């Protein structure tokens, strides 16, 4: 009797045990994400349109945008930032997290519920962020979106196609392309920036390299020292480069996501070809020194005032002013190297000028057929060229560069010299002084 009970108990207990110890169940993968009902109710471009320069704006009206991620921190070149682009524009989003590329891979369609977020500028670029740090009233800045709020604002929808980069030329680079994925063609690294490390991986500093369009114009490639490709060297050839366009101050910048964005498979640009006869943007010269570029002439006819390289907002220019000379007459010449016009047709000159504290000093653009290049231009015969020169910035620095317009040089032939001639004075009552400061930049002569 007792044995039967025991035996039964034993069997029952064994059974019970097998049930209890049944393996820890394996987890299935969750079902695929089936989408969201959210719909965008505004475009990225309309964010730009509603933004007042210099302001910080908070989103209060349940604005929703959508777009495709075109850049993220996958290679650590972009730091705590992703870039979102829709069909109208693109914008950078500052997010407080590492490894954002996991949540927001390239090509993912993202919906952003903007309510509660902020937008504002960083170096002139509009960005979306989580807040504004006003603890230092003189230096307010955006605060990235806290990681705890990612799920509140960001909804990843599905894989989408990364938008084709927009092919743009140097002249097409403008503010509306901020944060856009662009492709620059016929471009190469400046010769001094070839075979250099993309970034400074040792000191973890951001590095700028000059990219020169074969047709003239400089764009800067910015690369973080943390980028995984920082210690790869820049290629020597020319070709096309894809990246996110940005501006810092007035400097045009590009950031790549990966070195595969750089396709410099052709030989370097050939400069003696018909397109660009001459180009100078002064970027390679030391600021606050008189211009001493060998074939150029920098001549003070009167008043001992020379053209200087100056740097403003990371942009270098040639600058001239009579201010501070105390001279009755200040006449200064900046003469370009001699240009041979016989080998080309349809030559055009263009440049940028910018004035500051304009009180009537003059800047002329002159051309000469018979200047001998020996340092006494006043002995030669010069013709004035019809160019638009900046003027009117009475109380400060003009906010923009003035384009000269395309100046036709096809009426001229043979070896010519082109000169900037400044005329001013710095004596007498303040009202009669003419000491306007002029900046000259991006001097370019092209041919057909």
């Amino acid at each position: 009797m007792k044995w039967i009970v025991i035996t039964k108990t034993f069997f029952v207990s064994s059974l019970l045990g097998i049930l209890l110890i049944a393996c820890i169940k394996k987890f299935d993968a969750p079902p695929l994400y089936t989408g969201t009902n959210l719909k965008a109710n505004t475009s990225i471009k309309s964010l730009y349109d509603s933004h007042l320069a210099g302001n910080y704006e908070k989103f209060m009206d349940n604005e929703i945008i959508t777009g495709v991620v075109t850049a993220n921190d996958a290679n650590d070149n972009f730091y705590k930032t992703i870039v979102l682009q829709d069909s109208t524009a693109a914008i950078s989003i500052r997010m407080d997290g590492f490894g954002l590329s996991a949540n927001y891979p390239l090509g993912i369609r993202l919906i952003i519920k903007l309510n509660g977020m902020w937008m504002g500028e960083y170096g002139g670029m509009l960005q979306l962020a989580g807040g504004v740090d006003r603890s230092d009233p003189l230096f307010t800045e955006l605060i990235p979106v806290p990681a705890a709020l990612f799920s509140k604002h960001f909804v990843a929808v599905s894989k989408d196609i990364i938008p084709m980069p927009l092919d743009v030329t140097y002249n097409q680079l403008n503010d509306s392309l901020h944060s856009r994925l662009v492709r620059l063609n016929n471009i190469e690294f400046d010769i001094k920036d070839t075979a250099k490390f993309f970034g400074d991986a040792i000191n973890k500093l951001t590095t700028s390299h000059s990219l020169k369009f074969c047709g003239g114009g400089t764009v800067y490639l910015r690369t973080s020292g943390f980028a995984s490709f920082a210690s790869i060297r820049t290629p020597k050839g020319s070709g096309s480069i894809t990246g996110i366009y940005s501006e810092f101050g007035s400097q045009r910048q590009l950031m790549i996501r990966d070195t595969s964005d750089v396709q410099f498979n052709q030989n370097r640009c050939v400069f003696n070809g018909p397109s660009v006869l001459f180009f100078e943007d002064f970027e390679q010269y030391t600021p606050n020194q008189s211009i001493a570029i060998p074939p150029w002439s920098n001549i003070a006819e009167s008043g001992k005032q020379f053209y200087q390289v100056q740097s403003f907002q990371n942009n270098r220019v040639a600058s001239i002013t009579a201010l501070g000379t105390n001279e009755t007459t200040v006449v200064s010449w900046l003469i370009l190297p001699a240009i041979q016009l016989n080998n080309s047709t349809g030559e055009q000159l263009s440049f940028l000028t910018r004035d500051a504290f304009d009180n009537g000093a003059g800047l002329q653009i002159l051309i000469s057929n018979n200047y001998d290049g020996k340092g006494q231009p006043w002995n030669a015969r010069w013709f004035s060229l019809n160019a638009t020169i900046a003027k009117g910035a009475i109380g400060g620095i003009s906010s923009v560069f003035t384009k000269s317009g395309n100046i036709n040089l096809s009426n001229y032939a043979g070896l010519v010299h082109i000169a900037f001639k400044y005329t001013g004075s710095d004596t007498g009552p303040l009202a009669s002084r003419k000491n306007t400061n002029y900046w000259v930049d991006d001097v370019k002569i092209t041919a057909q």
Partner: protein
Amino acid sequence: MRILFFFFGLIQTVVFAQPPPKLELLKSKNQWVDSNLDKDGWKYFQDQYTNESSLNEGDEESTFIPSLLQSGKDLFSSLTGFSFSIRRFRMKGLSNRYFSQSIHEISMNQLSDGNIPWVNWGGLNEVTSNNQYAAGLKDNEFQFGALGNAVFMQLNASKLFPQTTVSLNLSNRNYHQRFAFTKVWSENKNGWSFASSFAFKQGIGGVIKANEFKGASYFLSIDKRLRNQLFSLVLLGNRQVNTRAAAITQEVVQLANSKQYQPVWGYQSSKIRNASWQFNHHPMLILSHEFNLHEKIKQVSTLLLSSGEKYTTALDWYNAIDPRPDYYRYLPSFYSDSLLKQNVLSQIQLNPSQLQIDWDQLYWINQNSTSDKRARYLLEDRVEQSKKIVLNTRYRIQLTNQLLISFQGQYRKEAYTYFKRINDLLGAAYSMNWNHFAEDNLPNSTAIQNDLNHPNQIVGQGDTFGYSYKMLLSQWLIMSQALYTMPKFDFNAAIEYTSTLYQREGNYRNGVFPQNSYGLSEPNYFNNGQIKVGVIYKLNGRNYFYFRTAFSSKPPLVNDLYISPRISSLKQLDISNERAYMAEAGYILNAPKLKITLNGYWINIYNAMDVMSFYHDGYRNLVNYALSDIGSKMVGLEFSMAVSLNGRVTFNSAISAGKFVYHGRPNYIVMADNEPYISEKGFLYIDQFPVTGLPQLALYNGFTYRSNSNLFLNLSSSYMGNQWLSFNPIRRTYDAAQNLPIHLDVDQITRPNNLPNAFILDFSAGYSCRIKKFRDGSAYYLQFFLGVNNLMNQSIITGGYEQLRFDLPGGDVNKFPNKYYYSLGTLYSLSVKCKL
């Protein structure tokens, strides 16, 4: 307050030390129950839960070893073991390696970490209670013993109480049901005895929502007696899988509005899934042979073979945001901007699921972040596989009636393999065997290769990755002991010598340490000894006085020797043996109605070593703090008393009051896992700091009512105070003090943090009855035990630690605030035991 309680205890001592009434303690018998039933039954019942707190908590806290109550022979520990375990009380403030537990004379303490792997025989409470207990330096028959205490477990079938029992436990603890079946046959006429026991435990949910527990344990013991020899075979094991709990900060307690909040789980497709698991299964086979060579000489030999695996499971991630929902950057306190702080707070309040792991999101990321589905997140097993073989022989020689001497020789070899294994790729297709931490520091080099012998290895589920190495440990031991008995005095002396060999063998050639990671390392040899002497003065059969002293030298634990054995064989610079001096004196009163033990001790430890490893997101890497030349000192008093007020009510009281401090200034070095150089070194300014992790003052008072031995009721209170949080060494360095912003007082970062004092009430009851009697005289008995722990339903802090990261530039101790473990509130357990 503390002093008040102390005096309260003393007054009670005096009051109750009066001659008790004329009734005998624990002696009354009843024909309906077998004699030891209620006492032992209650003890089994308690044992199940005493170790429990250590089994489910995270690995940040060193494994907690409960003080022992398995024997019931030592009044102090049988009274306090259960109640004090909530605060991880350790007797005398000693570290784990000074407590020892043996099975058939083989010490279970592991050479690797000094710990006793309780879980290996967990759940077999019905058969693991045949113990002998030696408190402190008390002599024992088997081994040298330990400074703290030593327990000797006998599992021979012929030495177990013949029984057939079926037990069912119900509880709201981390397991909810336990079912056990035990059968011990008495020795048959051919000299064979058998014993077996099986137990199953399980639990899902409960106080902690994501709790899950599954365990099965088995036991088989066969004895064969052959004239003067006894051959034994014991096979036992416990296979257990359970979730672990993590310590949490006060901030998340407030955010979640619960002290039972746990960050280590989340919903996956609306099912609860836990990320933090542990598994353990170490079957043991023990063969032993007792041989009475001569009427005065006994030889006992034991061979132990054991092999098994344990692992803990955790999330691993690479180039992705931290999946832990309580990561400090996700919490409001991280933000200085008040608006953002408010935004984050309301976001979490509106979406409480944000405080849990978002498994669906992890899967989504793994499947969408790259086209080839490389894993950003994965679940890893941190595996420790071990193989042990131990051979032990002891001779017990009764030279004369007064003199007993014994000799012991032991050889043990333990081989541990440590590696990481992919448990689940969480929807990803593959992972790379790369060290992503090294990616940042040494880009585009071979440093990212975890194994240069197999570079760019693609790994999938079940594959080894990360690290893989073996620890080969072996030890020779010889011991001799003498016990000399005289009418008024007993003398004992023991001396032990050990020779230990440690060697690491790397299975991987690590990219950061290609020269010293693969293959066998330089071995380390340690020669150590221990010696103890003691004397007992026997005033009469009831009053005993004793004095004992010991010197002990132990090799450093191998886990404290290698700075980061996961990736290299680099060792600490300053390697030394750990030395301990101890003296204790005491008084024992063993009267029928009054039992008192009083023990005072003094212990001084020198040259201990320690290594702590943790993830530092400033370094974005695993960082190791290696400490050496740690000194500590423990002075204290243990008192316990049981007084029978009348035949039915017993009053029990116990006090442990000690001062446990570190002395001197240990050396420290800091080394990150991905950099082959020492980044910081110096001294720790921790002279006179309290030893942490246990109450230095603990009081127990309880009343037990017992009627006719088939009912007992016990109500007890415990008070635990003077407890400090495990501290972060880096806050007590010269560098930390020098870097402190000028307006901050250095005391703010160096002062030890104490835990609030705890006062808890426990209740227990037992009842037994006979349900059926057979003609042959045997009968069925039913026993009930109920334990209610923490009657006042407090969620007290049971332990915790200062985070090992520290805001060095800001000096803000609250940037990485302290983390705490909380008790679960009132816990009940009901046990029904049927004796067939």
